[in-house]
């Protein structure tokens, strides 16, 4: 679930921002001959509805119905008692509550005479909701993931600024890792607290406790730490997710080498051209043994779109890169937001 701060912040993501996204989708729907568009959300598959409305459910699930010329309808199984909260963090939608949110959507579709319905990730739509819709309306579902992807490909300024804010927050939190602790749980004990106190909506922490033995990351509890270990913080801030990975060492000489690599990574991150192969660009920095690029995709906040085996470009404005670099025989894990358009927010650049 989402347990951290969830608040509508007009200065960060305005009603105008999300209305503009809705209008872009409506234009794409028209071009694709769709009468209506459906986007499913729960706190795992939140990215589609978050993009269109700024809203993320902390629990349960919902359907967002877009019919051109009308306010979006958020139909949810969350009870009426949390309606005020939903409206406070979702000012551009009509909110309707029902134990059968699909049925409610179906009734609206029937009343509006909609026949051809675009669905984001149709195959992943919960079957119960699809059946509820079909039980009260005669509609044709069409997978419209490509329509949404076209609208979503270019991030707007509000999204990029939120990514930048999330990254700053994650960097601050990772400062709380204590590399001198003997065990992983003790080393990262303050990390989540710092992140949440700074306003993180959610965070997940994973550790590779001994990079000289294994570079895979997991939630491993209080296992002993090796000479070189890595921490990955996946963090959500105001609906936007980023992943930051950092390698730590108690050895001063190794620490210095890692720091140089980090500086090179930070310098390279905004220069990376995501539209072409990444491998050759990364090799200019250091030997890289494995990497993955994740971008917001459909309902997923972050989904892998390229890696060292499938080095294909992406249309996304920014991505999150996680990479394993080779440093004198050891593996060093680094990661964070990257991409040409991942540039400093206008306000901070001016300052």
């Amino acid at each position: 679930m989402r347990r951290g701060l969830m608040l509508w912040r007009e200065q960060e993501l305005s009603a105008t921002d999300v209305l503009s996204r809705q209008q872009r989708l409506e234009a794409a729907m028209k071009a694709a001959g769709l009468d209506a568009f459906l986007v499913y959300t729960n706190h795992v598959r939140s990215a589609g509805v978050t993009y269109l409305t700024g809203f993320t459910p902390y629990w349960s699930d919902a359907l967002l119905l877009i019919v051109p010329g009308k306010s979006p309808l958020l139909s949810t199984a969350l009870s009426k008692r949390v309606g005020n909260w939903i409206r406070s963090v979702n000012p551009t939608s009509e909110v309707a509550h029902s134990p059968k949110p699909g049925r409610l959507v179906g009734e609206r579709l029937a009343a509006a005479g909609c026949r051809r319905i675009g669905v984001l990730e149709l195959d992943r739509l919960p079957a119960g909701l699809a059946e509820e819709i079909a039980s009260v309306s005669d509609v044709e579902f069409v997978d419209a993931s490509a329509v949404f992807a076209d609208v979503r490909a270019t991030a707007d300024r509000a999204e990029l600024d939120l990514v930048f804010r999330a990254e700053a927050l994650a960097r601050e939190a990772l400062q709380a890792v204590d590399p001198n602790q003997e065990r992983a749980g003790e080393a990262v004990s303050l990390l989540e607290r710092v992140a949440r106190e700074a306003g993180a909506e959610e965070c997940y922490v994973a550790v590779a406790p001994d990079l000289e033995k294994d570079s895979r990351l997991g939630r491993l509890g209080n296992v002993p730490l090796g000479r070189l270990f890595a921490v990955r913080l996946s963090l959500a801030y105001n609906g936007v997710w980023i992943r930051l990975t950092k390698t730590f060492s108690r050895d001063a000489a190794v620490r210095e080498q890692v720091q140089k690599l980090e500086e090179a990574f930070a310098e390279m991150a905004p220069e990376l051209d995501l539209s072409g192969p990444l491998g050759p660009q990364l090799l200019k920095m250091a030997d890289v043994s494995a990497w993955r690029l994740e971008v917001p995709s459909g309902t997923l906040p972050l989904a892998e779109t390229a890696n060292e085996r499938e080095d294909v470009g992406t249309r996304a404005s920014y991505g999150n890169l996680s990479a394993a670099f080779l440093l004198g025989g050891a593996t060093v894990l680094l990661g964070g937001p990257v991409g040409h358009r991942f540039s400093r927010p206008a306000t901070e650049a001016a300052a």
Partner: protein
Amino acid sequence: MSTAETRRKRLARAMAETGLDALVLYGNAWQNDYLRYAVDFGILEGEGIAVVGRDGETALYLDLPIEAERASVECPEADIRLASDLVGEVAAVIERLGNSRVAAGPARHLPYGLVRSGKRFEDATALIDRLLMVKAQDELDWVRKAAAIADEGYAVFRAAARPGRPDYALIAEIEAFFRTKGVDDNFMIIGVGGPEVRGMAPPSGKLLKPGDMVTTELTPCMGGYYAQICRTLVVGEPSQAQQQAFYIFKEALEAGIAAVKPGVTAADVARAENDVFRRYGLGDYVTSEYTRVRGHGVGLFPDTKPQILEDVTTTLEENMSIIVHPNTYHPEVGYIVLGDTLIIGADGPEVLARTPRELFAGTAGKEG
């Protein structure tokens, strides 16, 4: 034998008793109980499907590489398979099962693409729900551990609730505490204020001030099993009105717990709680307008069956674990929560919560 092994054996027995050849169990970080019953992995991102054969062999299909990697570290004994095309790959596996009897669940959450792939599934919901509700002894031991950590967590929460602090700072403190105790997950929402507060939600940045009631339900997860505690505190000293209102909730909780024993229905317990409110002229406030449920099951999901409501006729059985919580709105002082997790024993309830049933007085004088 590990708890995961216990579950696998119970699952195999249930499949044999019903003549099933395979089970297809879907899960994500929200609805993970069906999946986790078969494979002991706490999924966080993306989606997963476990395919369980009659011989007990189980494969877990995960759609995100990052989660498949984590599963390979956290569950080295499990058969983990990365399936970017989750629906297509699982549909192909099921197709290869031919004319065998396959059940799938939870029905509502199965991917539409799987349901329309051509294979007719039986509904596994009732079979799995029963396994989830009536637990083995080692499953109940995990619920006991989770309840003990919930008590510890509430002590941390109480100490954190100081005037001038934002609500999300309390969550930050409790989550950090839980992580140090090996709690991977926790369901919690919060309410801060007075009569204007009608329920609980995620934190919104409200600053605690003297006189505020602070409600929360903490639901930590140990070994995959959740237990819940609901308590209310007042920043500073509770007023007489707040105390008087609270005593009704305490009486209702005690009446509900007293009604719990094998053979009664969920409705009987709800009625026992609600009758107390009705006696005090607060019958309107036990309707769906003001409250969702009067308790629910806890286990591999924080809010599982049976729901404790006056129209739920599920019979309570030995070895179920539930929370009884008469949480609702009080028109004079606002939303109050109070609830204890318990295990249903042969002779009655084993109440797990050790935190006193009090309207706690929080620190009033110390800022920040």
